[in-house]
Structures are given as structure tokens and as C-alpha cells.
């Protein structure tokens, strides 16, 4: 479960950070002059990466997670292991 959460917030966070650098200062008049895209993007990115880190650790690394996502040979219970 931490994989999709981590993945989504990392991607959205990264996009906001990049946008925060590229966008013109004028749009931040609304947000009291603070470049909220940059700062909140960093918060989201950090949250996403922490979630991803937990997920990788809990599932025994990327390779174990990838194996669990591959189709199982018939006869075996294809349920993924307990949610991480």
C-alpha cells in the first residue's frame, strides 16, 4: 500500500518543485508572496520518498516486490503477500 502512496506523492511533489522554479513570481501574490509550489512540493516529495523507503524495506527490496507483481504459475494462490 505504501508503494502507490509514495509513488503518487513523489511524482506530484517533483512536478510542483519544478513548476515552482519555472513559474513567474507574479502568481504568488495570492499566496502572500510565498512560493508555495516549491515549498509544499518539497514537503510532498519528502513524504512520498519516506513512504517509498518504508515500502521497499518492508517488502524486502525492489526485487521481491517485482516478483510479487508478476503473474504466478497456475495452481498457486496468486494473491500478493500481506500488504506493505
Amino acid at each position: 500500500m505504501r508503494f502507490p502512496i509514495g509513488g503518487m506523492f513523489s511524482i506530484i511533489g517533483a512536478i510542483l518543485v519544478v513548476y515552482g522554479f519555472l513559474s513567474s513570481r507574479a502568481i504568488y501574490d495570492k499566496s502572500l508572496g510565498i512560493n508555495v509550489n516549491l515549498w509544499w512540493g518539497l514537503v510532498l516529495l519528502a513524504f512520498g520518498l519516506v513512504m517509498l523507503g518504508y515500502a521497499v524495506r518492508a517488502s524486502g527490496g525492489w526485487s521481491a516486490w517485482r516478483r510479487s507483481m508478476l503473474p504466478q504459475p497456475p495452481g498457486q494462490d496468486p494473491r500478493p503477500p500481506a500488504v506493505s
Partner: protein
Amino acid sequence: MQHIALGGIDYAILIIYFVFVLGIGWALRRVIRSSEDFFLSGRSIPAWIAGLAFISANLGAQEVIGMAASGAKYGIMTSHFYWVGAMPAMVFVGLFMMPFYYGSRARSVPEYLKLRFDEKTRALNAITFAIMTVFSSGISMYALAKLFELVLGWSFHGSIVLSAVIVLIYIFLGGLTSAIYNEVLQFFLIVLGFLPLVLLGLKDVGGWNGLTAKLATVATNAGFEPGAWTHSWKYMDSPSHNPMGMEWFGLVMGLGFALSFGYWCTDFLVVQRAMAAGSMTAARRTPLIAAVPKMLMPMLVILPGMLAIGLHASRGGFLPIGSDGQPNYNLAIPMMLAHYLPSGLLGLGLTALMASFMSGMAGNVTAFNSVWTYDIYQTHIRPGQTDAHYLRVGHAATVFGIVASVLAAYSATRFNNILDMLQLVFSFVNGPLFATFLLGMFWRRTTSHGAFYGLLTGTITAALHYGLTLPHGAVPGIKGGFLGAVLHVYPSEMALNFWTALFAWTGCFVATLLISLFTKRTKTDDELRGLVYSLTPRIQEGHMPWYKRPVTLAVAILVVSTILNVIFW
């Protein structure tokens, strides 16, 4: 009204969210092999996931839009829904009721009623519940579409179809598991999407002290003491001293007891999440884990409403004026989004709004399809079919539930505050239900006839009370008083709803008690084992370290919510 213009980045964030939501459904499609997988996630969900889904399923339209609207309308008193209402009820369901729900292996709340009482009590509950979920989900959809039409200029029909189709796909593919996983994702999105809004708003008005000063103007303009919007208890001595029009007794008993216990302890929409948990301990911890973020939720959903009305009073025209001359409270959150968030975060905020509507709708649809399949179809229409047959019925019920919600969405247009309408429906159906469960779970003498006719009496009491009273300033009709004579006028709709729930509860409690005393028991002690408190062995938790026991968490929650009540007294 000026529409908010969205940039490419805002659409990009919305689309990324859609991709992940649908991706979760797609990834889980192989997990669904039996009806138990589809309706109960194969009873395998860890406690923290079930807990976050428990709160997220409740975090739909009524929560985000309704609570912000109430925050603007009634101020910090709205927090009573949390610190007086939800907290004790969530603790009670986790500690005392989960052992029977989970331990009986019932697959739904109506099925528990069948095990404890009889088929007719189950049918009554299943049918009213099914109707209610369709309505709730329809209201959720209506609110979303109306809002997006007003604020973004999106087509009303387009928003309804878009949200309905996405929810349909992910539930159809992954059943309850998919709904639960998405609810967790949606929970984080809602928190992280609205938090910058609250922080910016608070910074702008000069923190809590600045907000208090602004809300003092709001309160005095409305003819109350300056602190009426920022004190939750101080002005509860008389209905005329606070904007909610409540005095403390009606609030504690009506909202804190009848309505909240009715909702959190008997509503299958939330209870289903705990039933899907992987073990008895996980099931008991589900509502308790959910209570922790729930306790802090007022900051996220009530505060924006208070900020919006504060800014409305001091800067003028912050909230658009509705046709009744009052500010349109339901627009508090969208107006705050548009005011403070630049392109980028605006997309995130709108995605959070979208996520909250979807989680509420998905919660309703998954609860609906289980009750329909197990308690109505399997029991009354086609019993004794194969499991694969019921799984297909579940899929069909998902489609049907969503289509019915869309129809309900088109019919929900009457109330200016969605919350009042939802509370009204809940108070008719849920208010009495908790009395039935309380007696059923803790008094073995409660009979099936007592439960059934008690429940009917409770619902009729609610309808009678509602039909004979009126909120201040309303004309008889859908808002009350439809039975001709008006015996009492309440200061507000909210007060009327709380009292209706309390009457319903009392009516059901007294009738169930009396009828049980005069009718024969239909179930022996043996049949009630695991269903009634005095006939169920206590759960042994001695082997667990004290900090892991559900009761420790429960005590901590009650202590912290008491402290919160005192802080905002």
C-alpha cells in the same frame, strides 16, 4: 461569478491522481476470486489501512463541504461533531461492539441483526440502509458536480459522469479492497491538499488571535457575544446565546449520544472497514486508529469555514451571496482555494476535493453492494446459488448502485446546507437503530419482536416529532411541521435534527424494552453465544504489552479530546 481558470499543471495533477486510482483497481483485479474477497477484502486488511479507510469513507461531501459550511455558520461549535460526537462513539464501537460484529463472523450489520434477532429485523435494516447509501452517494455526487460547475465552469453532467465512471471502474475491478486502498490514498491527498490552505489562511488573518478578532465582528453583527464563534461550550447555556441554537443538554444527548453513536456504531459504511480487518485485534483497533486523525480533522475542515466567514466580514464579498440573502456557506472551501492557491497547488487542492467526493461515494457503493447481495438478494430473491453467482451479482449491484446514485444526485436540490439534510435522514433511520443494538448486545432478554417493532416505533417517533415541530423561520413542508399542527419551534434546523434523533432513540428504547418483556424469547442462550455481552467469553489481552492493547489507545483518545474541549471552551 468568475470561474477559476485552471492551468496545464492543475490538470496534470488531477490526471496523475486518476491514473493512480485506476491503477490500484487494475493491480487488485486478480485478488478478487470469491464473494468474500469482493465484499470483505477476504478479511485480510491490516489495522492501520482499515483505520484510515474507516475515516476516509466518512470523509465525503458531508464532511469537507458540510463541515466547512457549518464552521462558517456556527463557528467552533461545529467541533462538537468530533470531540463530543465521534470520539466517544468510535471508542465504544472499537472496545465494546467490535467483538460481536467481528466475532460473530457476520458479513454485514444487517446480517448481525439476523443472527441476533430474526429475518424481518434484518430486512428492515437492510432496505432502509440500501436506500440511505444511494441517497448519500447521490448527494455527494450532486455536491461535487454543482461545485465544479459553479467554481470551474465544468458541465454538471460531465462531472457526474466522470466521477461515477472512475469509481465504478475501480470498485468493479477490485471490490472492497480497491475501495479501501483508494480511501487511504484519498485520505493522504485530502490532508496534504487542504493543509497549505489552512496555513496560508491563518497566516493571512494573523493566527488564531487574528481570527478571533475577525470572528468577534461576525458574532456581534449576528447579535451574539463577541466570542460566540470561537468558544465551543461557553455560550451553550441557552439556545439564544449561540449561533447553533442549542443548549448543552440537547447537544450532548442528541448529537453526542443518539446521532453519533447511531452513526459510528451501526452504520455499515464505516463498520464494513473494520469487518474487513485481518484479526479481532485489528478490527477493534480500526475505529481507534481512525479516531486519531478524526480528532484533528476540525483543523482541516472546520477552520477553513471559520477563516472564510472571518474574511467575508472584514473584507466583504468573500463568499458569494445566495438567493436567500445569506452568504453561500457551501462555497467556503472552493473560495478559499481560489483565493490563496496559485496554479499548481490549486490543482492539488481541487484534486483533494475530488478525492474526498470519490472516497465518500465509493464507501457508499461498497456498503450498498454487500447489503444488497448478502441481505436482500441472497436472502429473499435467489438463495442457495454458487459463490460465483453472488460475485456476479455483486458486480451488477455495483453498476446498479452507481446508476441509482446518479439518479439521486439529480433529485437532491432542496437544502442550502447539505449536512442538515443528511443528518435528517440519519436521524430517522440511525437514531433508533443504536437503541436496538445496545439492548441486543447487552441484554439477552431482548426479543426479536421487541427489536423489530421497537425499531419501527423509533422511526415513526422520529417522523412524528419532525412532522409536528419546525425550525425557527421555516415554513411547514420538507423542513418540518408537515403534519399540520406545529407544537414546538426550535431555534435552528440543527437543533430540530438533534432532538428528532433523541426522540427516535428514546421511542425505540422504550418500545423494545416493553415489547421484549411481554414477548417470548425466540433464541436460546446457546444460539446467542458470541452475540450478546454476558454470553461471550471476554477477549484475553493479558499477553499483549499494555501499550498495544486497544483499551490504552481508547483512554488516550478520550483524554486528548477532553483536553481539546477545554482548550476551545
